[in-house]
Every structure is written in C-alpha cells, then in structure tokens.
C-alpha cells in the first residue's frame, strides 16, 4: 500500500461507510477540503453540513444531531476543535452526546503553516475529560478501521489525524481493536510507545538500533484513552525502560498518560519525546529532526537513555 495521510483515508472511509449507513452525517467549518469530507459532501449533499467558520456551533449542532439518531462527524483542524473546549466539555462530554470529533492537521508535521494551525495540545485537553476515547491511527488500514469502529461506538469519540502521508506499518490482514495496544516489533531492551505520525519512524529507529545491538520493542498505542494498561505494563516489565514518542506537546499527551500509569502502578525509567515550546514554520522533515521525532532522533534518544 502506498503512503497515505490518515485524513485522506478517513475521507475515503466515510465515503464508503456513508453509502451503507444513512445515519452518517458530516459537519465542517469551512475546512472540508482539508479534513477530506468534501468527497462525502459531493456524494451525499443532504447529509453534509458546512456551518461556516463557526466551530463552536458546529460542535453543538453535532451534539443535537447525535441526540436525535444521526452519527455526526464534526471535523476541523485539531487546534480549532480544542479551541472550543468548553463546548466539547459540556455539549458533548457531559451531555454524553455521541459526537465523532475529528481533529486533523496534528503536530509540527503540518510544517509551513506554523504554530497557529498545529494541533499540539489536543490530546492533553481531551484526555482531561471523562467519557471521550482518543484514537490515533498510524496508517491507511488502521484509519479506515478506526472510522468504522467510531460509527458503531455508542458514545463520543476523538479521532486524531494527520495532514502528512503515512507509510504503512500494518499488513493487509490487520484488525484494529479499540482499547488494545499492539506490539508491532518485539524486543527486550527498551519499549518505544507511539502512535500516529511518528510510529513508522519508531520502527525505523528500532531497525537502526538493532545494528547497534539494541533490541527495541515498538508498541502502537493507537488508543490513547483508555490506555491498554495490560500491554503497556507487560512491555515495561519486560524491558525495564520506556520511551514515548509523539507529535504533540511533550506534556499531557501519550507520554503524560504513560507517566501517570507507570508512576502509580510500576515506576519505570521513562523518557518522553514530543514537541517542546511552540511549533514554528518550516519543512516538516526539518521540524521532526529539530524535535527529535525522526528515526535518527529517536534512535539517539534511546541510546542516550540506555547510556550507550
């Protein structure tokens, strides 16, 4: 399978699922070409609503649609969704309206647009709310299955998607299982936990580390809320060293969630890789290199962590 952005896979999945399920509707705030719901809107114009540049009311209207039997996907850049946190907090989470929130353009990987358009705090914000699972798929096949799962999930969902193309990390027969982390590459020396954009880089780093005699385990934590404690604790117990990698602010995201788990249940040496400070404009690859999220950076951090 060729590399594909998870937002593109999402758009294709919606088009496919929408043909079979009349309940599916989309809501956009003038970014449907970017969130990739535009194809769905062309195919099913009476089920696609572009409310204008008005994310708060988009989220609220999605709640109302969800409470009257529709399956609404409310889509925007992750940062703009999270900017309407209070509406998500009350109209979606507390109301328990089964809205499917879709945040695209996550992380510094969006590149040239710069900080204002980068979703860097979305996991931290959504994770603080009861009742909203967070799923971050890493390639086309996982994204499509996560979208299909979200349609059937009876509660609200947050899907975290990328602008950039993602190399496949799964074989064709892969089955996404909500709430389950997946050991992509077994190893004994260190556990690398990641999902979404940087996951392929983690696998590449593991291959390079193998050449240096380090056998790294790579775990795909596609479901960030709720964490698969069993798999993560099992991996940490085996390797004794955990490093998290995410294209998100270094505080409060996957690394934060893993730190909370390990700190309370099984204190384990931990390093968190992520974005420090604000993002900035630049070439996406250069930004990944700057923040140590490329394969080289991840491998370097692992070697330093292991005192090699």
């Amino acid at each position, binding site marked *: 399978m060729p590399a594909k952005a998870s937002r593109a896979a999402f758009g294709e999945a919606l088009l496919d699922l929408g043909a079979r399920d009349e309940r599916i509707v989309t809501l956009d705030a003038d970014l449907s070409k970017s969130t990739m719901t535009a194809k769905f809107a062309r195919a099913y114009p009476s089920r696609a*609503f572009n409310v*204008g540049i*008005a994310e*708060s*009311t988009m989220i609220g*209207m999605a709640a109302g649609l*969800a*409470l*009257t039997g529709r399956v609404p996907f409310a889509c925007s850049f992750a940062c703009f969704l999270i900017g309407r946190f209070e509406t998500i907090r009350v*109209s979606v989470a507390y109301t328990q309206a089964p809205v499917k929130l879709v945040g695209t353009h996550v992380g510094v990987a969006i590149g040239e647009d710069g900080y204002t358009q980068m979703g860097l705090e979305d996991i931290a914000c959504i994770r603080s709310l009861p009742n909203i699972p967070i799923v971050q798929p890493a390639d086309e096949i996982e994204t499509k299955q996560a979208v299909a799962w979200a349609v059937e999930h009876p509660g609200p969902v947050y899907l975290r998607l990328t602008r950039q193309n993602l190399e496949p990390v799964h074989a064709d027969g892969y089955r996404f299982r909500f709430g389950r982390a997946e050991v992509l590459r077994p190893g004994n020396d260190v556990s690398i936990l990641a999902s979404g954009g940087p996951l392929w880089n983690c696998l590449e780093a593991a291959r390079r580390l193998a050449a240096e005699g380090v056998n790294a385990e790579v775990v795909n934590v596609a479901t960030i809320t709720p964490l698969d404690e069993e798999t993560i604790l099992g991996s940490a117990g085996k390797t004794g060293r955990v490093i998290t990698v995410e294209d998100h602010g270094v505080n409060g995201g996957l690394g934060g969630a893993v730190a909370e788990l390990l700190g309370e249940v099984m204190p384990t040496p931990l390093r968190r890789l992520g974005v420090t400070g604000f993002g900035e404009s630049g070439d996406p690859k250069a930004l990944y290199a700057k923040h140590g999220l490329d394969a080289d950076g991840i491998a370097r951090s692992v070697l330093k962590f292991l005192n090699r």
Partner: protein
Amino acid sequence: MATADLARLQQIARECRVQILRMLTHAGSGHPGGSLSVVDLLVTLYFNRMRYDPARPTWEDRDRLVLSKGHCVPAQYCCMAKAGFFPESQLITLRKLGSPLQGHPDRVMLPGIEAATGSLGQGLSIAAGMALGLKMAGKTARVYCIVGDGEIQEGQVWEAAMSAPKLGQPDHALDNLCVIVDYNGIQLDDHVKKILDIEPLVDKWKSFGWPVIDIDGHDIAQIDKALDQAEAIKGKPTFVVAHTVKGKGVSFMEDNPEWHGKAPKPAEAIRGIHEILGDPLPDWARAIVAELERLEKQ
C-alpha cells in the same frame, strides 16, 4: 385560549413559583430571579404545547426543550415534577449530593432533560442540531430552546443564529425550531443595559433571517398564541422575544439584580408565598410554610 385553560395554567404557574421559593430555600443557593421570570413560558410549554410521555422520556416523537439558560432549571424541575417525571417530594433534594436535580441540568442523571446546559451560549446550537436530526428522521416533533437575554452576549449564540435559518435548506429547513428569549433585563452583575446592551434585539435577529414575534412573557394567552404563530411559519425557525420581569411575582425580588443568584431565607420565602397565592393560603401551601418554618428553627 379558553378561559378555563388559562385559569388552569395560571394556577400551575403560581404553584411552580411557590415550589421554586421552597426548593431554593432548602438548597440554600440557586437563582430565583430568572427561575421566576421563565415560569410562565415553561408552564405554557409543558402543560399546553409539548408532546411528551414522562413514562417514556426517550420516546422518539417527543417535542424537545433545551433550557439554554440552565441556571433557571428549578423552574423546569417544578414543571417536570408536576408533569410526572419524578415525585414532587424530590424537589427539595435540589443541589444536594446524589440528587438528579443538579444545580444546572444534567441529561444523564435526570431523564427528561435533553442537554446539559449552564455554560451559557451552547443550547441553541444543540437545539438546531436536534431540529435538523428530527427533520432528517422524518419526525414532526418540535424543538424549543429558551435562552437568556444576558446569554445572548455569548458569541456561540450568534454563530448559531447565523447558521440555523440556512441549516438543512432546502429539504430539511428548521421550521420545527422555536427559540424564546426570556428578556428579563438583568444578568448576574447588573441590568443588561448597563453591562452590554443587546438592543436592537428584534432587528438583529430579523437581519439574521429569523421571523421575530414580540410578546409579554407573563401573558400565557399571548405566549400560546405566539407558539401557534411560530408553528405556522414554514421554511425558517422562529425567534420569540418574551418580555419578562426578573423575580416576577415576589415584590422584593422583582427587577432587582440582587436576586439573580441568591436563595431566600425561610422568612423571605414565606413572605413570597403569601404574595404569590394571596390569603388565605390553601392547605398544600400552608404545609410548605410550616415546613419552611421548621427549616428556620433548625
């Protein structure tokens, strides 16, 4: 409206006003001013307009009410109890630990509440989404949304105001949505005119594409007629400006910002009950007065 119906609704409204004073006094906190101003609107909706079944609160064909000014939910609780959603004896559990009668409405804890509100500005968006969802499902149910006048200062209200008349057009126009503003003229800190005047309110909503109906929000016959008119308007949602008096029915609370968010003491509540019902009090009200007198001694 027939005279007998009007008298029945006016009597329910008086009972609700008494119950509001009672439950807020027991709770020791809450919002009497706006609860008393919105009562006549809610009583008309619950007892002369809306289709619902307390035994089946999730009945798909029910009309929906979203009380966007969620702090005035005591008035809604009184109507819900009277309608049979829960026993009236439960009213005095308002704001107590474990009670489904939360300080602001909770959809999950109390069947019959359609959305969590209280963080102002959000209810209209939810109501518009519900109206659209009902249209798409081929339902004839209506959606009512009550907003506060101060609440209209929230930006999300104007996002929804701009969107709703266009949402769902042409197949699913939201003519099943009726928004009512409880225009009592006072918000938490002071009179709305002093904090941030929302005038010209009628012109603003008209310019956003809404038919607007201007009424006295304490005249039940006028409220009912306005809701008839709203139901007859096709192709657009309707906005009703209901002019009300904050604290309506209790002289010392009327048009007084001090009573936005302060519970009465038992003696104040008793004085209010006498004003609302006149003397001599009926037996049920005398029982409430006796209960409040006991509360004062505790």
